């Protein structure tokens, strides 16, 4: 334990040890061990129902593990798999609402993310009237707008067109280069070559694979 905590000193990171979780009798996670250091872009892949979203919910504090330890260091941003927006509010109102939540001085960083994802023109459109891809862009922006040190992204590019998908990975790489810890969960392993680390969730445990080999 002491070694783990020392390893986290000084930057954004996540450390997970022996995490178990079950939905009633169905055991999903059977002792997950995992570490994410600063300046690392990592991915977790696994089949549908393998427990990827459960693990990310535990890391983000949405779900309490039955057993185990999760340690965070630094501000974190969480982009849930299912888009979580308020359909009655516009894009700008979402940003203002979360600006208040994050106690941000301004929305400059959020605006940069919007420009990168190219949806600034929808600022005054209600979330309920946005296309699926644009909703997902807003969902992602809400996770990034406070410039978190640790990013937990659960299939964040669902509904993106090819260009946006590429821009997402450029954005993820730039965040990694700026020292942020980025964890992307996907049921696809196509993105292996973009990652520094690739982990596979199988039979309730995480196994490290060589990045780029998936």
């Amino acid at each position: 334990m002491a070694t783990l905590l020392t390893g986290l000193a000084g930057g954004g990171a996540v450390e997970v040890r022996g995490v178990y979780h079950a939905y009633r009798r169905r055991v999903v996670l059977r002792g997950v061990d995992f570490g994410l250091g600063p300046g690392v872009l990592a991915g977790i892949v696994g089949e549908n129902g393998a427990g990827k979203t459960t693990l990310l919910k535990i890391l983000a504090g949405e779900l309490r593990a039955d057993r185990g330890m999760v340690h965070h260091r630094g501000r974190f941003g969480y982009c849930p798999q299912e888009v979580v927006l308020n359909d009655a509010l516009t894009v700008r109102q979402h940003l203002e609402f979360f600006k208040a939540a994050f106690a941000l001085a301004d929305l400059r960083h959020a605006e940069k993310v919007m420009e990168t994802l190219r949806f600034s023109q929808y600022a005054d459109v209600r979330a309920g009237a946005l296309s699926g891809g644009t909703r997902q862009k807003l969902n992602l922006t809400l996770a990034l707008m406070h410039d978190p040190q640790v990013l937990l992204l659960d299939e964040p590019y669902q509904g993106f067109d090819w260009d946006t998908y590429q821009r997402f990975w450029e954005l993820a790489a730039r965040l990694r280069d700026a020292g942020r810890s980025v964890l992307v969960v996907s049921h696809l392993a196509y993105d292996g070559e973009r990652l520094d680390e690739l982990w596979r969730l199988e039979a309730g445990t995480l196994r490290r694979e060589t990045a780029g080999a998936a």
Partner: protein
Amino acid sequence: MRRHLSLFATATWYDLIEHGRNRFAMLLVVFFIPTWVGLVYLTIPDRATPFQLAATGERLAPAGNELTQITGALNAVTLVTGFMMFAATFTGGRFDRRLAMAGYPRTDLVLAKAASLILASALLAAYATAAMCIAWAPKQPYLLAAALFCAALTYGAMGVVMGSLLHREVEGMFALVMTSVIDIALQNPVVSAGADNPLTRLLPTYGSVQAATAAGFSTTPVPAYLSLQLLWFAATALLGLLAFHHRTRNALPRPGRPVTAESRDAAALETQRAPAAGQNSSPSSP
């Protein structure tokens, strides 16, 4: 304090925007209330309905259509606030949680919801009272509005509870409609011979029905019955608060909690929350 006031104002504003964009609820407010109380007045016979009002002990014999208009208005306002709050809670639960986990104080979110409910209930009560006053003259119109207001508050809180606990929208709608119908119809002497049965005292709007009936046909003030209704509101709101607290909880402990190896043995998740979401640093280029 100033920050909380600003957060409360922001959350209330966005809450009101959300309610305002609930077009079905707005249609209900504008058309359903006057239509319902108007039809009741026109279609229910106006013959006298003698009964003893528990709130004042008086033997009253109001016109059947006026009496039913009161219960009809109670039915309408409770359904509208119940539906509004249910819809907002049901669809907004995960959004509230996301806000709370981003650092929005849950107290401000809850107070904002309460403020929206109070405002909506006050407007509805005033509107329904005005609609009734077109047809006849209640003896204590302000008390009538207050009774409607308290009932609307209670069902609004009930909507929050149902929106937190039920899993399908239709379940909530059905539960709210049936609760309101059973609750209020059983207390109307025109349609229920058992309106003075002691069991009716346990119904959620008993206080408001008694107070509103006294407001319509008596000059006796009945503060105890308004208080009883407010007690129902407080109890239901407490349930709603617990449900909201549970739904928006963060499974990660508060910042600063020590992480120790020993605590793993307690079979509990040991975490240390990021110093949080409430901080801002200079943005790096994304």
